């Protein structure tokens, strides 16, 4: 399923995890039946543990289901070799529906503060940001969090490598999941595919199998819209694999997970159509994951995440204070004390004889 993005596009799948969506599809699909209903993978089910970070977000409001749309900007500071050393995330939650809220946003948080424009102040717990309060109708909750770089970096969608004047951008979102291949009734699946193309929020679907399904695996990636500059060179393209750019220098890239391209499917066989639809759904699920880097307490809410990679200098640790020294050692001090004693003694003798 590797998209032939470039001539360098050969990266083998880095993640070999058989996960929920594919496993679920297999579990509910008996393998030795004909012309039967089979659910397709959910476009909303995550395909790996992260993202979102820290187990995602949750809401423990009593009776109110808040509608929450989440917009997150992740700033990744990379060194001159492309390695991330600092990650901050600014998440803005647009909370609707009047009532109490108590949200927990899981993340490896080091510090958190309210960002300008926030209607409330976030709380900090080990591995989470907490929001609590009452929403009088609409609340914008915006937190700026400094994340633990090692754990946050492992969930980033793009890896940057700088070497010998070449900057290589690598889509890191690949995941391999289990699925099935089979012949299907084409017409309903084509209609579903067309609906999927038009839908703003994709919904789950099903296929009618006309042959025994067989297990297989598929590797999917979230397509990344990468734009910005590397040194003096401008970049703007959708990256599904690896891209070597013959340029070096300061990296300033904006990365957004984007929906996959919907290629024409009318001419495909039933078997090929099922593979196409399945891959598209899994890709949408993967895109959704990377659009939810910090998670959203409303499972049905809209999510958008923008990743900004910027070359920066790692802040220098503060130099340890030099111990204050008088420039005098122990022997010298003793000599001075002894001299003082002798001088006082001599003065005393002189005084007694005067």
């Amino acid at each position: 399923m590797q998209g032939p993005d470039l001539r360098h596009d050969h990266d083998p799948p880095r993640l070999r995890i058989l996960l929920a969506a594919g496993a679920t599809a297999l579990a509910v699909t008996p393998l030795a039946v004909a012309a039967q209903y089979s659910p397709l993978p959910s476009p909303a089910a995550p395909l790996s543990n992260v993202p979102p970070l820290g187990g995602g977000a949750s809401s423990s409001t009593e009776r109110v289901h808040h509608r929450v749309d989440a917009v997150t900007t992740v700033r990744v500071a990379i060194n001159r070799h492309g390695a991330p050393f600092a990650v901050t995330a600014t998440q803005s939650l647009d909370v609707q529906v009047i009532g109490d809220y108590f949200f927990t946003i899981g993340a490896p948080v080091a510090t958190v503060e309210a960002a300008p424009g926030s209607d409330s102040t976030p709380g900090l717990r080990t591995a989470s940001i907490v929001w609590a309060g009452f929403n009088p109708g609409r609340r914008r909750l915006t937190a700026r969090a400094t994340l633990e770089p090692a754990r946050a970096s492992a969930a980033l969608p793009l890896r940057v490598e700088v070497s010998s004047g070449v900057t290589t951008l690598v889509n890191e979102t690949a995941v391999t999941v289990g699925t099935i291949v089979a012949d299907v009734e084409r017409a309903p699946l084509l209609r579903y595919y067309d609906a999927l193309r038009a839908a703003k929020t994709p919904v789950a679907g099903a296929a009618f199998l006309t042959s025994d399904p067989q297990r297989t695996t598929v590797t999917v990636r979230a397509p990344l819209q990468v734009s910005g500059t590397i040194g003096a060179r401008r970049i703007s393209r959708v990256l599904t694999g690896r891209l070597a750019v013959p340029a070096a220098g300061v990296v300033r890239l904006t990365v957004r997970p984007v929906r996959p391209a919907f290629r024409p499917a009318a001419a495909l066989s039933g078997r090929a159509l099922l593979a196409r639809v399945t891959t598209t759904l899994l890709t949408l699920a993967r895109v959704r994951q990377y659009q939810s880097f910090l998670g959203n307490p409303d499972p049905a809410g809209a999510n958008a995440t923008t990743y900004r990679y910027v070359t920066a200098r790692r802040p220098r640790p503060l130099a340890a204070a030099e111990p204050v020294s008088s420039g005098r050692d122990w022997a010298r001090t003793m000599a001075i004390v002894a001299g003082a004693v002798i001088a006082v003694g001599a003065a005393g003798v002189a005084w007694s004889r005067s």
Partner: protein
Amino acid sequence: MTRVALIAAVTLALAACGGSGHARGKPLVIVVNAPFSRTPYLGRTIENGVRLAVGEVNAAGLRVGGTSYELRVQTKDSALSPARAVSNVRSAADEHAVAVVDEGTGIDASWRVARGLPICIVFAGGAGAVDPATRPNVFRIAPTDHGVAFRLAEYLIPKHLRIALLHDDSDYGAAGASALGAAFSQNRSSVAVDETVPADALDLGPQVLRARRAHATALLVWGRPATIASAIAAARSSGWDVPVFAPPTGADPFVRQQLADHPSWVNGLTFAGGRLTAEVGPGPFTSFEQRYEGAYGVDRVGVKTRAGQQVLEPPETAMYAYDFVNLLAAALLKAGSIDPGKVTRALEEVTTEGANGDERAFNRSNHEGVVDDDVYFARFSDMTYAPVKDDPLSATLPTIDQTR
């Protein structure tokens, strides 16, 4: 059915004794540091809230790090004296108490001598008392002056009233003046006059008259209950039907007792306070109130409605004390230790359901258990109060029954 109810009541009563029975584990003492001799009602309601929760925790069993413990309650009278309050906290630390539930007096010094022992304020809302960075062992479950002042400003400014800010010269009044100053700093045009009045003054006629001459269209009185009662009496006796607003002390029984001869004067008094109920409805608070009354009886205000019904005071402060003990128990379990430092850190990580059905929690950057959003407004009518309908939060809250 009656027998079952009786058994349940006896069980609850025994549980509520909070450690007076035989020990089922190593004793673990919670100290209640409150002004029992100077404001007995306040001290007693804090103690009762603690005892009620302690009884329930002990009944459920408390096993921490492989050792069974039984919570005990020890009271120490601060007599509203900072020196005595500090001495009480010092001795609590010396005696290896597990936490202090505190009215708030003397906290600026007592937190230092606690040697890391968690202290939870359940009454005083002054600024600066709670700061996770500089006072990591201090927590609070009570509306803050800051939250009350800003919510009052948020509520009153859109009404285009010209507000007379009256605050007395008590510590509470001074803290309120500071909080109100900040809350109205961006809208000074809403303030007709800003005046300090003597605490506990019997006659505030001159000050109220100045407010009237300044063309005030509302009084916001921040002070002790006696100050609020005096301000209302001064306004009403002069025939001025100005709306009066107050912080949580407006709901203090003393205000109604002072004005009992003129019950109609209390009508319309609007106060800000911590919400007693959550969106799940009055059920959780009513259940708490019934358990509280079953163990300790009702708290009578000392006035009656027009229909002759006794007016009762809902156990609000007791609720905060009760909630803290439950958070403490959850923190002990999470910490797996009774070490004060570990318990303090665990308090920042746990959430429990409060007596009002709302989540109660602290975190590493906020040790306030009542967030500003939880401040609501209620208005008196016939000696009882009900949430107002012209505030988004208050409009969602049911009225708590206050009569018998």
